[in-house]
């Protein structure tokens, strides 16, 4: 069962210029230091990236007595879910600067500050927007990289959209007896969803180990307009399925629609969706009775 999770993108992975002082940490490392080892990492903090772990650590550091100067996000929209923007930033009046990144890290032994700059639509630095912010700690929350080395070495079919294995409704990969789940399969917003996925995968793997059989996943599911991916990629139609997907961009008052042979199987109204929020849709098995040619397309519609 492939459940290797993700590693955090580091300073090296994003290539930030400047010196190499102590005080530059990934958000997950700080989470471990503070929550498990009872160690404080700094007093005046700038956070680069608005991923969920970075947002949660912003609140955590404020509660533990540090000052969080600001959060800088290079994209025009936050990477974390809206709920975390509210309860981790707005509750504590922490400014969030969008279209902004750290262009230089300062300090010899220890971080003494960072230079922020705004970026244009093509991610180029906007001239004349540089400003120095004094801080002793830079916390990075700039994305997760799935630990897919093993998946790749095994030669499994991979999804370019999730960087994880392609799986059926039992979380069974293209190789018999090999399953995958968790953040190495698709990056989850919250641990609860990863746990639910792991439980299902464990039950399916046990069924396979005991009987050598799994439901025949003959129906193909594909992501159409507006969606980056849909998981699982194939289903049997014999059971209800919890699909997971993410939109390409922020949308209001649209629907996620499951279709087969031009007919609608299921329509879920979405008052609001955004790339930062994974969408989970349960589709009951009764809906799969009308599938045509074993093909289902899922897309965003008005």
């Amino acid at each position: 069962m492939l459940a290797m999770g993700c590693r955090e993108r580091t300073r090296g992975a994003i290539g930030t210029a400047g010196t190499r002082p102590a005080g530059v940490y990934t958000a997950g490392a700080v989470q471990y230091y503070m929550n498990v080892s009872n160690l404080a990492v700094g007093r005046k903090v700038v956070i680069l990236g608005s991923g969920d772990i970075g947002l949660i650590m912003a609140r955590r550091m404020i509660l533990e007595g540090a000052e969080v100067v600001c959060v800088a996000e290079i994209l025009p929209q936050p990477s974390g879910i809206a709920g975390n923007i509210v309860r981790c930033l707005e509750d504590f009046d922490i400014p969030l600067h969008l279209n902004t990144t750290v262009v230089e890290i300062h300090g010899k032994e220890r971080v003494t500050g960072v230079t922020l700059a705004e970026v244009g639509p093509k991610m180029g630095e906007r001239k004349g927007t540089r400003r120095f912010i004094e801080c002793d700690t830079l916390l990075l929350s700039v994305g997760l990289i799935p630990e897919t080395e093993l998946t790749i070495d095994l030669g499994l079919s991979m999804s370019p959209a999730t960087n994880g294995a392609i799986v059926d409704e039992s979380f069974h990969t293209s190789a018999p007896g090999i399953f995958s789940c968790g953040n190495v399969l698709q990056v989850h917003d919250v641990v609860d969803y990863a746990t639910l996925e792991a439980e299902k995968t464990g039950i399916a793997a046990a069924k396979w180990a005991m009987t050598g059989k799994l439901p025949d996943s003959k129906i193909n599911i594909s992501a159409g307009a507006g969606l980056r991916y849909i998981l699982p990629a194939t289903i049997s139609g014999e059971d209800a399925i919890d699909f997971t997907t993410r939109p390409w961009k922020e949308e209001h008052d649209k629907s996620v629609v499951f279709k087969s042979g031009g007919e609608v199987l299921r329509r879920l109204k979405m008052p609001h969706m955004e790339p930062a929020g994974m969408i989970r849709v349960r589709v009951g098995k009764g809906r799969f009775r009308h599938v045509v040619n074993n093909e289902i397309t899922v897309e965003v519609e008005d």
Partner: protein
Amino acid sequence: MKSTIICIVCPVSCPVDVEWTKEDGVLGIKNHLCKLAGPYVESELFDPRRLLTTSIPVDGGDWPLVSVKSSPPIPKNMMLEAMDEITGVRVKAPIKVGDVLMTNILGTGCDVVATRNVKSV
């Protein structure tokens, strides 16, 4: 009055449109996916509260800290004050999930409750 309040009950984070007045309370809400949004919006307008999560040092345990939460959620504007109360408190292992480690913090009626097990060593 019309406001948009982001529901933080679950990760979906619905941006709930709410119509309300100070005198009559919530008159109507829309743009939400489930029934949890109603009570949340009501509380957010008239008595905003947050689940306070932090950790407390443990003596003689297999972990140096025990994670804790406020139960029920405490008034939003008292979070930092509550942290001052919690800072300096130490507890002794063993601790079980659900153990009440502090009671009636700042007179709010909220307790501080353990959210993990710590064995004694």
